[in-house]
């Protein structure tokens, strides 16, 4: 079995800073990480490899520095790493991204065998769109399984898979045919630590690097900014409410402060007090 895991290198959002005057992102010095949601996808792929035997390819589209994240994926146990990088990809929205990735996945299939499963995380922490996974599935006609919490059965011989999917009010149990695209739900597994041997091997490993032409993209207008139907017209910081917060400046003990807070809340929202009182009464009846 061949499994491909799509990962993205993202800025560690906890450390993003916005320039207070220009409203631009200060990228300098912000460390990059593998998108945390993608780690659940990678771990699930490695578990399938442990159980059923598989080769796992990690695929990442991004700048040349994204090879760091791919090397990390190799230390966790991926067998192969492919970096898709080209300046023509700059500014891609999710439609252009899913196009480039689907072309790379086709090329991976030709070179290393058609994958039975393509994994992605449920979304990235920088874009937060959750659209690239479904985009890849639509383009490659893979059966789409999003928000998967558990892989129940993988029957390679029959070419079938059964999964549990997180729906709004419960869990759907779905059965479908391979090949599939799975977006893995968070907190469904815990990423293993790679072995020292894997780390040493990963440090030496070749990162297969392809550009647009390498994956057979001839029409560059389908890539990057030009291939993106959406346009970001404005980036801005939200404005403060016109009326500043009323600051409660109570003196004295914590109890006095707490009473001042309660007075201020119920002073502004007497209806809430009435309802809470009614509810409290109800409890005692």
């Amino acid at each position, binding site marked *: 079995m061949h499994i491909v895991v799509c990962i993205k290198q993202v800025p560690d959002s906890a450390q993003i800073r916005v320039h207070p005057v220009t409203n631009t992102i200060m990228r300098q010095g912000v460390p990059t990480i593998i998108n945390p949601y993608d780690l659940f996808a990678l771990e699930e792929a490695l578990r399938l490899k442990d159980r059923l035997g598989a080769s796992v390819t990690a695929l990442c589209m991004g700048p040349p520095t994204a090879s760091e994240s791919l090397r990390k994926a190799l230390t966790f146990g991926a067998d192969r790493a492919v970096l898709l990088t080209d300046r023509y990809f700059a500014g891609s929205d999710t439609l252009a991204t899913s196009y480039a990735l689907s072309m790379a996945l086709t090329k991976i299939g030709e070179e290393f065998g058609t994958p039975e499963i393509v994994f992605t995380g449920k979304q990235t922490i920088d874009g937060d769109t959750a659209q690239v996974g479904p985009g890849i599935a*639509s383009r490659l006609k893979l059966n789409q399984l999003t928000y998967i919490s558990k892989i129940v059965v993988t029957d390679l011989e029959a070419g079938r898979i059964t999964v549990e999917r997180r729906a709004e009010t419960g869990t759907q149990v779905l059965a479908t045919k391979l090949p599939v695209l799975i977006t893995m739900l968070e907190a469904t597994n815990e990423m293993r630590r790679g072995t020292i041997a894997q780390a040493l091997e990963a440090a030496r490993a070749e990162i297969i690097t392809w550009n647009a032409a390498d994956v057979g993209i001839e029409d560059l207008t389908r890539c990057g900014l030009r291939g993106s139907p959406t346009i970001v017209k404005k980036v801005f910081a*939200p404005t403060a409410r016109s009326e500043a917060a009323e600051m*409660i400046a109570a003196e004295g003990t914590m109890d006095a402060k707490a009473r001042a807070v309660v007075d201020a809340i119920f002073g502004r929202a007497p209806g*809430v007090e009435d309802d*809470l009182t009614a509810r409290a009464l109800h409890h005692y009846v």
Partner: protein
Amino acid sequence: MADAAKPAPAKGGRANTKRELPEHFKAYKHVWVAVEIEHGAVHSVSFELLGEGRKLADKRGVDLAAVVMGDDREALGKAAQDCFEYGADCVYIACDPALKHYRNETSTQVLTDIVNTYQPEILLLGATNLGRDLAGSVATTLKTGLTADSTELAIDEDGSLAATRPTFGGSLLCTIFTLNFRPQMATVRPRVMAMPEREEGRTGRIVEFTPNIAEDDVVTKVLDFIADRDSDTAALPYADVVVAGGRGLGSVENFQLVKELAQVLGAEYGGSRPLVQKGWITSDRQIGQTGKTIRPRLYIAAGISGAIQHRVGVEGADLILAINTDPRAPIFEFAHLGIVADAVTLLPALTQAFARRLRVTRMAS
């Protein structure tokens, strides 16, 4: 859509050039909402979208339509009536046994077919697991733009949809357009838009659409559905009172103080995104752009700094009280009431004060 991590295009670049809309897209007209129905019930986000869609349609002088898909004619008829009463002028009904449960395969095909047949200018979906699963496939199939998790929608004179959403991990906002493709698509999370007033007895036009699908051809089968036993977390977006904690609590043990206050108030509790990353709370208790959006009458934020991604999830609250040790914390820019204090010491006192106050009021009444 928008890989929101991309930088804003430079001035004078493509972003500022408005090309003529291609001829074949000029017939695209009206504002649509793809209605979310699971187990016979319409998700309230669909009504919230109808409320917002009504404003867009009125501004543009066009109709508001809803698309309902399912297998139960009676339930679909009832859903259509609900849509009329929440503002739709027209409802497209697709009824087929293969649409009994939501499946990406069937819903994508049917919705794409209806869009290609009737050609809406704008198509809105809820940013739920179902809506995001469906919207991503439909937009890719139609090769059009899709903006995820919009927090504000506006329409220009020429029908361009301006969808605003947080970007860069929720540290800034951006406005996204799909200028040269139709339909313009966007998803919106539940509770981000207000629930519209219901107009009893309002009616409209029904258009039956015959889906071109057959169960035998559908590859993916639904074997089972296990409804959630713990429905508590589902109540968070609809709670009247919410208490939440953030990093300022200092330790996972102190999160108990949030729960204690919530209990006295009969409130739901939640937390900011860093708490999920620390593992103090589960992700279904996360409040903010990538978690739950809330619209309570009272929201108490304890030790939360108020990053944009949190702000957009709580701005619909009627009254926000912020507790933070830092007087310059961004949360004081959008809270109504604030107190500079350590939440760890104030919360227990507040729990006591609320308990006493409510007891006294009860005895007096």
